[in-house]
């Protein structure tokens, strides 16, 4: 699902965020990405989301070599990747329903189809009764669950999450991680950047550890 081959990313100014990283995440696998701040976690996720391009090496996601994806193809590639952000990135002038519906509207689905799928996604994250509310009236945990519903609503084969529990208390964090495990159970590949080491240890999934832009540890999984 995700394959990095000797990937380096050097930003203008010479700062090397990732150096010579090679890793492979199999379809249906769930893994955590850890490391201190500035270790390159965000850069790695940005390379997968096509927000950044590698300076060296090859990124292949879902069988597509990203070096061959032109600017115009980027949106279509991104539709197959559900991204969850630490700051949720919701649209505050739209209801929960409209936020979750956005990926489906972009993909051009019909009205009844959108309603059906949005409600299914909201049901999964336990927010079906809040579809008419505005995100600002929801708690942090609920906002994050709206973000997750939006990421999964068009059933992408890969979920990326950047510090999804960064601002949540341990109880809520566990709930959110439980959601990711549920999606993983039905075959979605999940990669979560997090530094909540305690929680990660308890969950017992594969852990990829970055240190100063290098892959310093890999607790197992496909190679």
């Amino acid at each position, binding site marked *: 699902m995700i394959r990095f081959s000797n990937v380096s990313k050097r930003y203008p100014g010479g700062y090397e965020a990732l150096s010579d990283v090679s890793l492979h995440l199999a379809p249906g696998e769930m893994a955590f990405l850890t490391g201190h701040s500035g270790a390159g976690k965000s850069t790695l996720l940005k390379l997968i989301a096509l927000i950044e391009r590698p300076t060296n090496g090859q990124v292949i996601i879902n069988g597509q070599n990203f070096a061959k994806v032109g600017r115009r193809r980027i949106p279509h590639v*991104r539709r197959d990747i559900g991204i969850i952000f630490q700051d949720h990135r919701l649209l505050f002038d739209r209801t929960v329903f409209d936020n979750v519906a956005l*990926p489906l509207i972009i993909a051009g689905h019909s009205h009844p189809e959108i309603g059906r799928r949005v409600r299914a996604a909201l049901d999964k994250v336990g927010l079906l009764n809040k579809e008419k509310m505005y995100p600002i009236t929801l708690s942090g945990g609920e906002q994050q669950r709206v973000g997750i519903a939006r990421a999964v609503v068009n059933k992408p084969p890969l979920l990326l999450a950047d510090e999804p529990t960064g601002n949540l208390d341990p109880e809520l964090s566990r709930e959110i991680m439980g959601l990711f495990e549920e999606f993983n159970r039905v075959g979605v590949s999940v990669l979560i950047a997090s530094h909540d080491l305690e929680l990660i240890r308890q969950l017992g999934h594969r852990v990829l550890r970055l240190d100063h832009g290098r892959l310093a540890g890999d607790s197992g999984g496909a190679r």
Partner: protein
Amino acid sequence: MAETQRNAPEGARVVKMGAATLLRSWLLRHVQTFFYTLGQIWRRPFNAILTAAVIGIALALPAGLYVLLGNAQQVARGWDGATQVSLFLKRGVSEARAQALARELETSAGIGSVRYISREQALEEFKSLSGFGDVLQVLEDNPLPSVLVVFPRVEQTQGPEVMEQLLERLRARPEVDLAQLDMQWVKRIYAMMDIVRRGVWVLGSLLGLAVLLVVGNTIRLAIQSRRDEIVIIKLIGGTDAFIRRPFLYTGFWYGLFGGAIALLMIQVSLWLLAEPVAGLAGLYGSSFRLHGLDFVTALALFGGGCLLGLLGSWLAVGRHLREIEPT
């Protein structure tokens, strides 16, 4: 549907969806955007009204001038009909020949009627009008030629060139000594109207450019204020076209509403002018009335507004959308 194609490359996806489905989803998106942008304007009408009013004024100025110019042309054409050509016949032409010529001319194209003034009549007229009657009595011989007064029938659509042609034709007659037409003032008026017409175009172009800039700037501000939204939409797979569409529709609405406001302003102005104009015309013994915008001009006003709105937003979107990328 999407599940089965999720892993397919774009080309395969297009083939699988079929042309009809694709067209329907494309139309659906446009209809959605159409109402979505209208709803946005409806929810916050003040900004939209301000922008539309500026566009309206910018459109109303040249369009209003154009309407007034049309009215002025109508008046000038009326004056064309009042012109007459005096044909002074050669001295050797007999009275019978002159009258035959008058009848012949009456039947030829471009001429309404012909009045024959014999040498005696001319003398009588001159005596009574000039006040030199006593002096003329001294003359043994009548010095005045006989005259044919020709009233041309000029079509409404024809300009001064047609009159010139008619004059040439009359002048070429062997019986005619001198053909005289005082057309200088008609020519001057046409020349002035040419200047005004050119001026309307210059003004229209400048104000059209202003509309473009107003719309462009409004859309630029809208893009900037929705920066976060654009970034999010890009992150979850929105194409440039998808992001561009609502802004283009918004520009279109601004143009359309601007056109409507311009139309309203012109009609109200004409309505305010109608009475004094009718009064003035009455003083000249004319039944002239101000004409409003005709259907085609009104349509052009709307169309021009929409086109400028679209173009302005297109320029702004093309310029600013690429700058906003997720980081």
